[in-house]
């Protein structure tokens, strides 16, 4: 999930709780592992309980997979077919009501006009009012690499 944006969250100046192999912050991890267990109670006996699970790659993988699945399903409900990791990232970052429009917009579309965020919120994410959806995609793809274009719910 890379909620650290691949920054050095282990540094003393970091205030992020992003941790573990999938770099999820604590609140996301907790919500998602609970969701994963609710969806498939059988995994409960195979995971590390509590926040300690965040540091267990196998356990955190369940939570990360659940987040990907949920966001991809949200995109499909919104009319976006075969959501990619990059499309899911749009939902993850901009929310379920707005992310699908970012995912579906052309590269030249102005991002701010879709997400309607303040300049400070945009700046906090390395964006400006003139940033395009293509700019945002390039930023994310730089971090995600080839995984950006992978289909999340392949075979579903």
């Amino acid at each position, binding site marked *: 999930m890379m909620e650290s944006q691949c920054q050095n969250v282990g540094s003393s100046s970091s205030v992020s709780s992003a941790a573990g192999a999938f770099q999820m912050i604590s*609140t996301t991890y907790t919500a998602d592992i609970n969701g994963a267990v609710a969806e498939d109670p059988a995994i409960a006996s195979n995971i590390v309980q509590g926040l300690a699970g965040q540091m267990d790659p196998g356990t955190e993988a369940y939570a990360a997979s659940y987040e990907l699945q949920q966001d991809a399903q949200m995109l499909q409900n919104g009319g976006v077919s075969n959501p990619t990791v990059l499309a899911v990232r749009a939902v993850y970052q901009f929310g379920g009501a707005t992310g699908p429009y970012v995912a579906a917009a*052309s590269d030249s579309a102005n991002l701010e006009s879709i997400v309607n965020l303040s300049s400070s919120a945009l700046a906090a994410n390395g964006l400006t009012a003139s940033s395009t959806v293509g700019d945002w995609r390039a930023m994310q793809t730089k971090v995600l690499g080839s995984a950006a274009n992978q289909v999340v719910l392949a075979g579903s």
Partner: protein
Amino acid sequence: MKRLIMVSAAWVIHATIPAIADTEVPIKGYQCFGLNAEALHLTPDDMFAGKNLPKVLDAPSVDGKPIGTEGSLIYVTWPLKIENGFVQVLRMNGELGWLTEKAIRPMHRADGSVGGARSSGAKTAI
């Protein structure tokens, strides 16, 4: 808050939909409206989590089959096509559906006027 940034309701857009994204032409016969979160009693958390978003039905009836959901930006048939309390909408996959009329609200243009933004840019007539 688990994510990086919060999203508020959009009120001016120049977005495109996938079916025309490559061509960047206005979508004739449609306009963008906003989601009326207040009327639907949606909280900011609902919006961000994508919870309780209004269902799009395949027919203008409470008995219509759900075919998806709509989010903060809604492409409506223009002029509005309203039947039985439902408004016809264009989904991002190009499919037409029906949404409860109370789910939409007009958007403000950049000049402050109300009436729905154009679907792919404010300078090109629909």
